């Protein structure tokens, strides 16, 4: 029996006259790792931001762990802000630009959510933060401020910060795109650990090799719609749609 963690139904979103998501629907099952690929401007970030309610769609609905949120047609959500905040705790988000809190040390960044949102007690949250720092290989950087960490280290702290909320699903929006090529591997390594631990993940990335290795399903989107989806072997080796083929050959000619 599969349990849907995220259900997206008929999501539409435009910025002004720019239609960014068009009648987008998909379901993410518990434990599933879904890679999302597509050209720049195809709406990948907007999709992730809608799932976390950072962006308000124009129509459609999103269910997180069975709780449905619609748009109210007046630029808001169908549930109160407090409920939105609570649903967000189930969804961990990792940003391209890390967005660590610069005034807090690495461990304080990780503790912030458990402390101010989950209201966990001090012992519990500190122990958890230490474990997470160890998991991302940064125990010795615990008391460093973000400005003292490399991009790859900051991103690993950001992943730990999201995990500290015990999320049901993790969203990665080009988590390695702002990093120097030689550092990308350390962040992908942490993400791979999460895959091994059975975390449900939605991964927007240009790292095709990574997607091919870890994803159960790959979605290729363009102009706000799913053009093609399927297991990585099928999508990468046997793309059906001409646009998928064009995109993949363009990407591969770049990386080779």
């Amino acid at each position: 029996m599969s349990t849907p963690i995220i259900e997206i139904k008929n999501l539409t979103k435009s910025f002004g006259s720019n239609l960014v998501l068009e009648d987008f629907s998909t379901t993410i099952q518990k434990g599933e790792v879904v890679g999302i690929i597509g050209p720049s401007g195809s709406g990948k970030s907007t999709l992730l931001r809608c799932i976390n309610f950072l962006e308000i769609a124009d129509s459609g609905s999103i269910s997180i762990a069975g709780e449905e949120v619609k748009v109210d047609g007046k630029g808001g959500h169908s549930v109160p802000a407090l409920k939105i905040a609570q649903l967000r705790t189930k969804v961990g988000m990792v940003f391209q630009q890390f967005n660590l809190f610069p005034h807090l040390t690495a461990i304080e960044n990780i503790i912030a959510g458990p402390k101010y949102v989950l209201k966990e007690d001090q012992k519990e949250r500190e122990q958890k933060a230490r474990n997470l720092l160890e998991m991302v290989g940064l125990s010795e950087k615990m008391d460093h401020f973000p400005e003292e960490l490399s991009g790859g280290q900051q991103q690993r702290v950001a992943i730990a910060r999201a995990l500290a909320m015990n999320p049901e699903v993790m969203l990665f929006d080009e988590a390695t795109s702002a990093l120097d090529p030689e550092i990308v591997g350390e962040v992908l390594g942490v993400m791979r650990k999460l895959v091994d631990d059975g975390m449900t993940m939605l991964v927007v990335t240009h790292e095709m090799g990574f997607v091919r290795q870890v994803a159960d399903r790959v979605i290729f989107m363009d102009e706000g719609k799913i053009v093609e989806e399927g297991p990585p072997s099928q999508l990468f080796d046997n793309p059906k749609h001409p646009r998928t083929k064009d995109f993949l050959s363009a990407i591969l000619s770049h990386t080779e």
Partner: protein
Amino acid sequence: MLFNIDNAYSALGVLSLGLLMTIFLTIICGATSLVAGVFVALAKMSKRRWLRAITGSYVTIVRSTPLLVQLIFIYYALPFVGIRLNPLSAAYIGLSLNVTAYLSEVYRGGIEAVSKGQHDAAAALGMKSSVAMRRVIFPQALRTLIPTLGNYIVSLFKDTSLASVVTIQELMFKGQIIAAQNYDYMTIYAMVFLLYLAVGYPSIRFVTYLEKRMKNGYAVKKASKRKVGVAL
């Protein structure tokens, strides 16, 4: 001799009392404005339109009129509508209202300058907007604003001299009283000048120091902590 040491010496006690009043006014009005400014800034950014309208008009009115006129109005005009304030209350209210308005603009600028990514990250952790403001946005804004806030407090220190028009016995007023008695304007006002300088100069140096320190980033604080740790 232009500067009369004897006159200066005999005026020193009274002038020092005036300086104490000046400092007292600076502290109470400064503390009030530093706190009230935050709330006015938040009100100006509120979702509630009426709240934005009220605080917006207040700030605009204060910024469009001279402080001297504001003080005189509060002390000399308000009694005609039944609001009678003693000099200290009038000075306290007038100066605080004035500085709060300016500081609210400073706070608002600082809060708005914190990047969208910080709002997103806080929201994504499930923080309510009030929690995000308190734990994430405001601390970052405040840090960048400390030197600017410091400058406004130094300005307030100087502007308290205007409270002499509502008969507050601060440094300027004491100087005027003594000068009117002994006519030694040169000596007395030089003394007043020097006493302002004696407090004002170290204050602006301190603000400059804070500015430099801020530019050094967040890690500085910890580095000094670490050194202390080692020394212990």
